[in-house]
């Protein structure tokens, strides 16, 4: 049994974020979960009610370094440490590059890449000081492929992978691990917004002939956060039903 850990999950209101929270809460009974929420909070509030006393909601705009400062101060003050960070917040605004607005480019880079950078930076020092910690960055299959209409998102998520590898080397001596996960098509709200034709085309690319379930991602997150995964760092795990 492991000791009590403080785990911060960003983008906790989304499908993967909720699943990651439930995965920890249902299996590691001493964990305390901090759900970083910004624009939406209803699903995160449900989780807090489902697991009374074990979940805190924390206002966190991942694109704002000051918001990260405030959140981390709260966690350290109330919880005493930050043990696991799951950088899950993100989003996309798709369009062909030739017609992509500056705003769409900047917002997506900000949300996905800068947000991950700020999060990694702020937990690095406390994790170095305690000589332990786990950072798990949720990237995307888009980082490894060349999806049409996602130049901004693919660039941001590729950046997340590079950041993950570099930081893993910088923190390795302190026993802090940094890994990334690249989910493919996962049954979340984002996927349900796809029209039927696009959905069928996407499914045609998956050798397993089905989309992934959020818990198939969150299981991997929990594994990377566990003590047995202490020698895994700088790794990228594809969870996509076998797409190449």
């Amino acid at each position, binding site marked *: 049994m492991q000791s009590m850990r403080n785990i911060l999950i960003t983008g906790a209101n989304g499908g993967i974020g909720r699943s990651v929270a439930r995965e920890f809460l249902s299996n590691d009974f001493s964990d305390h979960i901090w759900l970083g929420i910004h624009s939406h909070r209803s699903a995160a509030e449900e989780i807090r009610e489902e697991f009374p006393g074990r979940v805190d909601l924390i206002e966190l705009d991942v694109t704002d370094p000051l918001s990260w400062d405030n959140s981390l101060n709260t966690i350290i003050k109330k919880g005493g440490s930050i043990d696991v960070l799951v950088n899950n917040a993100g989003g996309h605004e798709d369009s062909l590059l030739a017609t992509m607005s500056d705003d769409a480019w900047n917002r997506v880079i900000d949300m996905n890449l800068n947000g991950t950078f700020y999060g990694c930076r702020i937990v690095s*020092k406390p994790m*170095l*000081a305690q*000589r332990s910690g786990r950072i798990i960055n949720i990237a995307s299959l888009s980082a490894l492929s060349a999806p049409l209409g996602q130049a901004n998102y693919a660039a941001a998520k590729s950046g997340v992978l590079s950041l993950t590898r570099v930081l893993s*080397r*910088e923190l390795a*001596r*302190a026993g802090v691990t940094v890994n990334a996960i690249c989910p493919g098509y996962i049954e979340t709200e984002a996927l349900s917004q796809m029209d039927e034709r696009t959905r069928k085309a996407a499914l045609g690319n998956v050798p397993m002939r089905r989309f992934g379930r959020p818990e198939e991602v969150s299981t991997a997150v929990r594994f990377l956060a566990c003590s047995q995964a202490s020698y895994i760092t700088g790794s990228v795990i594809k969870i996509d039903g076998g797409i190449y």
Partner: protein
Amino acid sequence: MSEILELKQRIKEVLIEELMLQEQPDEIGNDTPLFGDGLGLDSVDALQLVVALEKNFDLKISDAEKAKLILRSVDTIAEAVTDKFPGK
């Protein structure tokens, strides 16, 4: 052992413990350069060391220029810890 010698011994122990060095405390000279040809530490060690000095000695090193001066050797770290370092 005088207070300052005890402090230098403790600094060496922190160096070894936090940076997972293979040396013994008595193998590290008080004036041995920590970087380059001396102990051979690198920039990653420097970051870890800054964090470790704050944790163990409450020594806050706020910028890179000060860090360069303070992290030269066990002697310079000890001076900074005892508040004698002029750049602190």
